């Protein structure tokens, strides 16, 4: 053995070591390759940004200032980002009258505009299902129906985030980038989300969307009234979802989809207020929730007129 070593001057051990080191170095180089595009894609501040719950007021102001500046550079739009907090004594709930929904999809379009969705893909948090009368099987619903509506043999069921009280999407998030707020809204920290899409898979209502690409919106179409947890323009590669327009509803306003509804099939309000419209519906109509058997406890109710 010692003789061979001496002859070649290069031991087997040395060769294996060298090979290992080369492979290791190559793997490391490959692994850090995405960092070469760092400056183009994201700032150091964004990379080091803390979780929503850990941001102090000063830090939040800095983050918001940075995001507003980014909206200016990337979209040419002057936007105002707010971070309205849940109000004590308010828990939001929604109800939808399937007897008078006509399937016009105005709610989906209003959502698209209000929430700064990508224009090319026509994204919206609302899917309107055309269902045959006599069945409530969501899986049989069609979203690609064509007019004129309403058809006599069909009813129309808009589906969006049900703001579950036991949300499966929150359970599966590996980084706690999504959580339930005190007023019932399931929120997402777009800067903490890693884009694994577990929540999208876990949601039984297909209510979550993934930003495959950076949203493209003309400057004049950007909705400048934005919320940190709701309709600010999302980065590429993160999840998003309906927030009951919390930048509007936490200011006391009605959600955009409700205002757009031409028949008034949508009812929104504070479920803790016995005098509210939503409570009247729950007490006087035969309401049901979607996929009740899954135990998700939705805050979104459906009903038919008798």
């Amino acid at each position, binding site marked *: 053995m010692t003789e061979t070593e001496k002859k070649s001057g290069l031991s087997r051990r040395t060769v294996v070591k060298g090979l290992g080191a080369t492979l290791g170095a190559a793997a490391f180089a490959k692994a850090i390759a995405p960092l070469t595009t760092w400056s183009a894609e994201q700032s150091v501040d964004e990379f080091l940004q803390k979780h929503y719950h850990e941001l102090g007021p000063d830090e939040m102001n800095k983050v918001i200032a940075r995001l507003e500046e980014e909206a200016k550079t990337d979209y040419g739009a002057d936007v105002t980002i707010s971070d309205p907090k849940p109000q004590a004594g308010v828990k939001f709930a929604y109800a939808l009258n399937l007897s008078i929904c006509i399937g016009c999809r105005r709610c989906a379009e209003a959502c698209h505009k209000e929430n700064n969705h990508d224009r090319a893909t026509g994204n919206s948090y609302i899917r309107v299902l055309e269902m045959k009368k006599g069945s409530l099987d969501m899986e049989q619903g069609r979203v690609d129906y064509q007019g004129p509506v309403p058809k006599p043999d069909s009813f129309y069921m808009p589906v969006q985030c049900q703001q579950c009280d036991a949300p499966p999407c929150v359970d599966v998030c590996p980084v706690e980038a999504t959580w339930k707020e005190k007023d019932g809204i399931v929120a997402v920290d777009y800067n903490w989300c890693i884009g694994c899409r577990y929540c999208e898979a876990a949601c039984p209502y297909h209510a979550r969307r993934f930003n495959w690409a950076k949203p493209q919106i003309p400057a004049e179409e950007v909705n400048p009234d934005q919320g940190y947890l709701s309709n600010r323009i999302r980065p590429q590669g993160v999840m998003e979802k309906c927030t009951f327009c919390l930048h509007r509803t936490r200011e006391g306003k*009605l959600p955009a989809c409700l205002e757009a509804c031409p028949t008034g099939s949508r009812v929104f309000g504070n479920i803790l*207020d016995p005098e509210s419209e939503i409570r009247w519906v729950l007490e006087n109509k035969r309401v049901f929730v979607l996929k009740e058997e899954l135990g998700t406890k939705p805050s979104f109710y459906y009903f038919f007129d008798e």
Partner: protein
Amino acid sequence: MKISPLATVALCVTSFAIALGGWWIYRISFAPFQDATAEQETRPRLAKEASFPISIVGAPQTPTVLADLSETGEGPKEVACATCHTTRSPQIEQRFADGLDEFHQDLEVRHGSLSCLSCHNADNYDTLKLADGSPIDFENTMQLCAQCHGPQHRDYQNGSHGGMTGYWDLSRGPRSRNACTVCHDAHSPAYPQFMPIFPPKDIELLKELAKASRSQPQH
């Protein structure tokens, strides 16, 4: 039967573990719901404490008719209903526009078995009348409609028919609501069919766009 102390201890430990597991499952199942509703340090915001008004928009005005007054040398002019109707005797039986030889001929009437004078007031055509014969202004038609459409009126009064804009929280802002005739033509009230807008786009398009944005040169 005698139980060894070891078995007793094992039984206790197992029971404790099961109880702990049960509590944990209960906690993860119900905690989100309790968290959301538990913290009621302050009482709920109540609608009745509201200060802002709910206004109803789009209520009809007292109508006028474009009349050809060329015989009098004045040309076409908007005139009040009473201008002609005071000179004519009311036709109690009239139900459709078909039999009319002047005015309203192209009016489409599809409203159950109502006749014109079910709602129009023969004593004063610038008002309408309720079922008990008392006159009511055009601005207050909701009361007229509610005579037959009680369930819809009840739903409307409770915010689940007819739509609204503005504020859910009336302590922070006003709300605007539609009158019946904004959506329903009083003479032909069935809501018409129309083409849906904003069709969904194919998921394949989303994927293509993502691919395109990936292949774009970094700037």
